[in-house]
């Protein structure tokens, strides 16, 4: 009997880092999905794109460094970090400001991602 098709999940990150614990809970969910070999796609939208900015110095805020957690995603087989291109340009950044693995998604691509996954979970 063939293996049943796996559910595909899209995780959408909309929160900036450090202002609430939700951004971290979302990343933890991505890591857990990777650890349990569940296929997930990650998309950074709206203020969520700020999670990807390099050189985050979090020690004075007493919080764990968000950028370091993000950098560990490839170890969990999450290689591509999709970034909503409109959100990124709203904040005046370009794709070269972001870490390796970040890839721009235009409006059409975002719509396609929302449509083609079995589950969409937004943080």
């Amino acid at each position, binding site marked *: 009997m063939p293996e049943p098709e*796996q*559910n595909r*999940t899209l995780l959408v990150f*909309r929160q900036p880092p450090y202002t609430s*614990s*939700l951004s971290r*809970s979302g990343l*933890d*969910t991505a*890591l*857990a*999905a990777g*650890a*349990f070999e*569940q296929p997930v796609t990650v998309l950074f939208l709206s203020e969520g794109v700020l999670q990807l900015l390099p050189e985050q110095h979090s020690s004075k805020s007493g919080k764990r460094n968000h950028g370091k957690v993000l950098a560990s995603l490839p170890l969990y087989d999450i290689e591509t970090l999709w970034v909503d291109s409109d959100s990124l340009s709203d904040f005046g950044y370009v794709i070269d400001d972001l870490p390796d693995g970040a890839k721009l998604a235009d409006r059409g691509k975002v719509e396609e991602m929302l449509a083609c996954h079995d*589950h969409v*979970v*937004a*943080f």
Partner: protein
Amino acid sequence: MKYSLLVLSAPDTGSGNLTAVRFAESLVARGHELYRVFFLDRGAATGLASAVIPQDEQNIGDLWTSLASKHGTELILCVASALRQGVLDETEATRYEQPAATMLPGFEIGGLGLLVEAMAESERLLTFGG
């Protein structure tokens, strides 16, 4: 249909948490399968037994507890979120040398793997809050 719920809303903020428990009650009443409810981030405060709710307000924790006792619904609090907010079962209270357990009946503490499993097993996963 097989459903799971992800609750991100705290019980004392907005109406997401109350909407979630009402939705859960309706699902079961209509004969759907509720595979699991997973409480993450601020949602994990739902399981806090030592929260004292004013008498003229709805005690949402009690609604969840009665859902679990009537229908055997699995209510899982993310362990990292629960500990951070002081929701401890007997095991965690002992492990972290805290004076008492503070978790409502009907809830269990578990890892994010249980959310990932719910994603894999359920036809629908609904998120409340966030």
